[in-house]
């Protein structure tokens, strides 16, 4: 048996440089694929049960388009993108501002969802156990909202680290990975919006 640990030949001259994708980006892409599959199943359940509730309030009667929340959430994708660009250029103050804006817009979205749910539960009497619409609505929108919460926690943590001076331009890629997660959350909202508030009504 040959001793081969360190005698594997070096590559020939003139070969192109060996470049591989970034781990963070590939990792978050995998996570996004897996999470998308979960969301797709909840969307399928929602679509399958459209019109099948045996009783109770129907979407057209009780749902209003969440315009404010949607605008805020989708804009927050722009702000987080700007935060990443700013950090790449070592513009720490700009990054802080854009990131704070993202957190704020995300929080407004959550509050508008909370208000909508309060209205549905207390005024309309729609809960997860009322009928199939209630079941699929709260679970799908709730699953999305929980992902917004997780995203906001991570963005706030990044903001806190920025404010305490621990972040510099060499962390730009990590912020980009986080921003990809946030873009994913926004993308899911586009689907949820179309399925629940447009198609389903």
């Amino acid at each position: 048996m040959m001793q081969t640990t360190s005698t594997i030949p070096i590559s020939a001259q003139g070969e192109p440089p060996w470049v591989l994708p970034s781990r963070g980006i590939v990792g978050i892409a995998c996570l996004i694929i897996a999470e998308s599959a979960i969301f797709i199943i909840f969307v399928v359940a929602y679509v399958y049960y459209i019109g099948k509730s045996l009783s109770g309030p129907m979407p057209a009667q009780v749902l209003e388009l969440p315009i404010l929340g949607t605008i805020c959430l989708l804009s927050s994708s722009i702000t987080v993108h700007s935060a990443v660009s700013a950090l790449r250029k070592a513009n720490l103050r700009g990054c802080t501002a854009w990131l704070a804006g993202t957190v704020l817009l995300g929080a407004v979205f959550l509050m508008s969802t909370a208000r909508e749910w309060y209205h549905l539960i207390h005024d309309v009497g729609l809960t997860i156990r009322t009928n199939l619409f209630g079941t699929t609505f709260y679970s799908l929108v709730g699953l999305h909202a929980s992902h917004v919460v997780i995203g906001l926690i991570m963005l706030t943590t990044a903001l806190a680290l920025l404010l305490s001076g621990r972040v510099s331009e060499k962390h730009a890629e990590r912020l980009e990975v986080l921003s990809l997660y946030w873009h994913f959350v926004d993308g899911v909202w586009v689907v949820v919006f179309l399925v629940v508030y447009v198609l389903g009504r």
Partner: protein
Amino acid sequence: MANGHPVLEAIDQTVEVKRRPPLDVVYEWVSTVDHKKIGLMYIAYALIFLLIGGLEAVLMRIQLAVPNNHFVSPQIFNRLFTMHGTTMVFFMGMPILFGFGNYLVPLMIGARDMAFPRLNAFSFWISAFGGLLLYFSYLGGDGLYGMGSAPDVGWFAYAPLTAKVFSPGHSTDYWTLAILLSGIGTTGTALNIVTTTLCMRCKGMKLSRMPLFVWLMLVTSGLVFVAVSPLTAAQIMLTLDRYLGAHFFDTQAGGSAVLWMHFFWIFGHPEVYILVLPAFGFVNEIIPVFSRKAVFGYPAMVAASVGIGFISLSVWAHHMFTVGMGPAGNTFFVFSTMVISVPTGIKIFNWLATLWGGKIIFKVPMMFCIAFLFQFLVAGLTGIMLSAAPFNWQLSASYFVIAHFHYVLVGAIVTALFGAFYYWYPKVTGRMMSETLGKWHFWLFIIGFHLTFDFMHVPGLLGMPRRIYTYEASRGWGWLNLIVGVGALFQTAGTLVFVYNMVRSYKRGEIAGHDPWDAWTLEWATPSPPPAYNFAVEPTVNSRRPLWDLKHPEDPDFNYE
């Protein structure tokens, strides 16, 4: 062994210290993020569950050995088949295969560890917790009152049997939660494998030069993302039904029992490919080395593996031919299921062509791989029978199906796994396993396998459904079930010989050296066992078989690829 690098030498020296305090050793293993140790923990964990799951099977076979038996009650029997299936799939099959993947993938691509070592450790521990939770149900399943009870809803837990009204208590919830947690762990490991494979290959190792085992782990991990998530989603829905009064699968409120079936099998079918693809990977590594020939048709093997991965996402409702999907639905799934036999067949033919013209060495790893080839062929053919929907209307939910899928799980996957153990044990421990004990293991197990699973097809053809704790004497199934039971005893004996072999060889096996099998992939370029850092210097490769190139400088592979 000096390697000229002061830090690495220091690491080497730390490991050489003999007789460390036991608590230190435990702490090292519990806190490790090294892919090799994590891989070994997965494997050890899975072996424990192999024995427990095997015991559950033996108890069932004793109950079924004669008609109208009273060895266990129906309640206990129903828990046994539920726990046996759940344990073997989620806490034996998945961990052991991802354990091998964890250990081997970085070594095979010339990397020093996985991309995310802490995620790797987290994934293991959360999966391990899931398994413990499942078995805790024996104590805690009934809540505070009375003895606990394990879940008894079958491993695929069809609705509405799992609704609160039909399954009161918490046994079903232990099933749900245990699998949910292990699903998180599996997804984390898959994420690690994909990222490591795409981002950490050594210089020169283009994707088209990776060992086939690495390709198969890559495809498997991709499947995990899109297959395990649907199960996670369905289990969240089930838990919402059981605890918050949701109606996802509540047929009284207009919900659909068939929807659970779709969601489960959208997971369940790719799941069996997740289990079998790594087994293909083992065979892809072992057969060439013991035929002394390169694998025949590497590009076709890659294409077939990727193809199988994609097609496996479209066949799920062949588990549902009897639920009344109608001719259009049934016909589509007949077609997709039959189509998947084409790339699968290609793989079998390529293995055959690899053997052809070679110099076949019948050491124990190869013996298991040859058994794999015959057995997987049969399993695939009974699969084709089941894919013909009308034939399926008779055979589904019968012992024919149980025989078919055990032919795949045991005859193909476990058999290939045994081969993998004998093949890579020398690398992991530095010692060879005993060939003599290995041959005893092989023959006892294979004879037992065939006694059990060949004969098991027949009761299915004679009308015996699955999941029954007993049967009428007048059906004529008694003598067949008796033979099936006897085979189980042979398999148990073989497995015990195997465990003994592993334990004994650890201290008394022949010293293995770097490359006892004269193989060609990078893991055989490291010492046995490899040091913590795997490679002192990152290797550079020029072909699919870097060690062949070194051993045959007059005729290297890169002239032909």
